[in-house]
Every structure is written in structure tokens, then in C-alpha cells.
């Protein structure tokens, strides 16, 4: 082993921007994967000592315990307003918000749309897990039609509860955002693409491009009442058709 170790080099390790801390996330939760991707991008872009993040209220409310960067904790839904206030005061620092679908698409949709419409120069990472994870799995604006949740116990009924909101497509009707993409963390293959998108969003921000946005389809095994394996399968089978992956908007010029 000893000799072997000498010959081996570590090609994958915990990013510097992530503390060596056990998260409170459930086994198989997409928050953990996305955290790591964001942290890797921060490392790769060398911005750990300048970036400021805004945590949402949702399962990831404690993300400042995991990221070794300066962070705000927002109130539920208001991360974009906080990021706006901060970025206006410190346009020299990179800023991102990290928000769940309840946080961003329900209570905070106004703040998101207006930050996007103004072209605020921060990046938003949007965790779409089709439910309110933290409060015990209630219906989110992104919950699929027919999906059972604590507040749609017989499945989301489109007659009374309407249809899921496609946030990327909605934001793409605005002029200001420079980058809008939807990715998934349901498999290693998708994780690689997700990281590319996140990296592109941050890079564009660093170049001064306005509002960049990455939606991450993310499993919530606990509130979907599934095993992690079932959860990723369910995600790909059911969320992919409703939420097509890919770049919805990107600057003409490549990065």
C-alpha cells in the first residue's frame, strides 16, 4: 500500500471551498452534489476569498456551515433582493444565491423576476426538487401534475392547483439575463454537464454579464418517499419531460 500510494496521485478530492463537515442532508440528496459543484467552480475560478453567497430558507439554509466562504442567510424567498443590495454595494465581488423551488418559485418569484429583469450581476443556483424539502414535503410550484405531496395527498390536481412553473422559460422572456440553463444531478453524466453550466454562469458573471441562472433538477428521496435510487429514476422519468435540460439562453459570444 505504501509504495502504491507513492505512485498514486489524488485526482478527486473535497474542494477547498467546502468545509470538512458532515451535512444534515438526507442520504442521496441533490443539495450535497450541487454544493460540491458550486464549491469546485469557486475553487477553479480562484474566487473563494472574494465570493459572497446567499443561502435560502429551505433544506440548504445551513449551507454556510458547509461552504468556507462569506455568506448571508436570507429570509425565505428574498435571496435575490439581498444579493442585489450586496452586489450594488460591492460590484467588485462575485455573488451568488442558492435557492430551492419553494423559496425561488413560490414566495420569492417576484424578487427573482425583478433581479433578472434588472439584470443584476449575480448568479442564481436554483434547486428544483419539486417539493418543499425542509418543511416536510409540501407541494411546490414545480411539483408535477399528479405528484403526491403533503399538501396534494391525492396528487397535484391541475384543475385546482394549476400546472408547474417552468422558471427558466419564464425568465427567458426577459431581456436582461445573459445565461439561463437547466441541468440535472441525477447521474454522474448529468453532474458533469451541470458543473459546466454552473461554471459558465460564474464565468459570465466575472466578465460582467448580467444575471446568470442555473436550474438544477435535484432528487429529494425523503420527501418523495423513495430510495435514492428510485428518486433519481423518478426524476429522469418524470421531471425530464416537464423540464427539458439545456441552455435556454446564452450569450452569442462563447465564454
Amino acid at each position, binding site marked *: 500500500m505504501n509504495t502504491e500510494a507513492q505512485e*498514486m496521485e489524488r*485526482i*478527486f478530492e473535497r474542494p477547498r471551498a467546502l468545509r470538512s463537515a*458532515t451535512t444534515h442532508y438526507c442520504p442521496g440528496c441533490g443539495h450535497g452534489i450541487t454544493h460540491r459543484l458550486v464549491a469546485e467552480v469557486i475553487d477553479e475560478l480562484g474566487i473563494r476569498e472574494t465570493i459572497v453567497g446567499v443561502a435560502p430558507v429551505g433544506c440548504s439554509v445551513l449551507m454556510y456551515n458547509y461552504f468556507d466562504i462569506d455568506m448571508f442567510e436570507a429570509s425565505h424567498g428574498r435571496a435575490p433582493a439581498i444579493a442585489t443590495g450586496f452586489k450594488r454595494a460591492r460590484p467588485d465581488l462575485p455573488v451568488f444565491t442558492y435557492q430551492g423551488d419553494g423559496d425561488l418559485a413560490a414566495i420569492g418569484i417576484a424578487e427573482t423576476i425583478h433581479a433578472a429583469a434588472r439584470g443584476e450581476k449575480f448568479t442564481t443556483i436554483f434547486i428544483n426538487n419539486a417539493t418543499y424539502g425542509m418543511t416536510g414535503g409540501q407541494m411546490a410550484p414545480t411539483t408535477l401534475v399528479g405528484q403526491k405531496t403533503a399538501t396534494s395527498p391525492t396528487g397535484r390536481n391541475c384543475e385546482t392547483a394549476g400546472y408547474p412553473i417552468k422558471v427558466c422559460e419564464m425568465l427567458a422572456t426577459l431581456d436582461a439575463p445573459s445565461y439561463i440553463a437547466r441541468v440535472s444531478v441525477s447521474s454522474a453524466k448529468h453532474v458533469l454537464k451541470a458543473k459546466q453550466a454552473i461554471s459558465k454562469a460564474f464565468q459570465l458573471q466575472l466578465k460582467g454579464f448580467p444575471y446568470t441562472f442555473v436550474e438544477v433538477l435535484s432528487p429529494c*428521496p425523503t420527501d418523495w418517499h423513495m430510495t435514492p435510487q428510485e428518486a*433519481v429514476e423518478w426524476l429522469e422519468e418524470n421531471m425530464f419531460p416537464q423540464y427539458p435540460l439545456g441552455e435556454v439562453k446564452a450569450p452569442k459570444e462563447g465564454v
Partner: protein
Amino acid sequence: MSESKTQKKPKRARIAIDEHFCKGCGLCVDNCPQHIISISGTVATSGYYPAQCPDPENKCTGCTLCARICPDVAIEVFKAKKVDGGAH
């Protein structure tokens, strides 16, 4: 499964799973193209049954896919250094 395939190769790569972080979600198991990761039958101090990758047949390619899907950053990947005529 054929003889030749199971024949032991030199270790090109390996992973290290940190039991302290692993929550036994099994996503690495599903994402390893070499199917060499499994969930251990022994509970860890965390209360979870962690993943393990004994890889006796040295199948690990160091593709890092397991690590990339791991929600708990429990996996490190090591790869054999390319032997070149360098300073070593």
C-alpha cells in the same frame, strides 16, 4: 466474467470512501461503470451502512464518476502517476 476479464490487472486507480461522511445512499454503486462499489453490511458510527470498494481485481479506472455523484463528498479518487522520464 470471462477469464481474461477477471484477470488481475495492475492497480491503475483506486478510491477512498470516508465512512465518516458516507450516508450509504448507494448512488456511487449505481454510477460506477465497473460495478465495483457495494454497500457494506456493517453499520458505521454515523448510523449508516457505508459504501465500500474493495476492488480486488483492480478494475477501478479512476473515472471519478462515483465521486462526482456522491452527495456527501465521501469519495476521493487516486490514479497512478504516469511514469515519465521526469524528475522523480
